């Protein structure tokens, strides 16, 4: 089922996507689906296992389901400190 999602990009993902944020229509069930579909579209190749995701401002697992209207935050490999 196609869902309308707001996707936010950070750091290198923002550079790949060319924007901070976009609204997308995706046939996605889980956060991992969103990651793969948009990775293909934007030519990003970071492996999912190195990245993190949040849904509506809460850290989430890659197999968390996304719902129509959700905001999905895609985090490339973090490097604080």
């Amino acid at each position, binding site marked *: 089922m196609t869902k309308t999602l707001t996707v936010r990009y*950070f*750091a*290198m993902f923002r550079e790949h996507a060319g924007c901070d944020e976009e609204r997308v229509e995706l046939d996605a069930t889980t956060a991992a689906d969103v990651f793969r579909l948009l990775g293909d579209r934007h030519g990003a*190749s*970071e*492996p999912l296992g*190195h990245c*993190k995701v*949040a849904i509506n*401002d*809460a*850290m989430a697992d890659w197999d968390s389901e996304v719902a129509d209207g959700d905001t999905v*935050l895609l*985090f*490339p*490999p*973090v*490097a*604080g*400190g």
Partner: protein
Amino acid sequence: MMRMTERPIDPEALRRELLDRAAGAYASFEGWIRNHNDGRAVTRLEYEAYAPLAVTEGERVIREAHERFPILHARCVHRSGLLEIGECAVWVGVSAAHRDAAFLACRYVIDQVKVRLPIWKKEHYANGDSGWVNCERCAAHG
């Protein structure tokens, strides 16, 4: 308590917040911007953070430190924005009755903060290049 800031970190002011008459030990850690990484000369670092979740996740890390170790207080402050060589990017402080807990909790907090908080850094090199830290390693594992 976890805090994100765009202004210089003041370790001495933060240390005073951890004073406690029941504390016999205080351990602190600071991450400083150093002038080299992986053999390349670094001129400055740019930290990007998603502050709302960095704070939430940092608070969670600090709660975990309290659950794991008998400590009195633990705090962490992380900078974002453009930092010059020698500046403090992250500060962690822990006070406890005994030093073992203070050291272990301090180490736990910085180790977790580095791998869990949504914070990224871009290094600017002496030759004008720049790059996201860990990006290469990530590609190598791809």
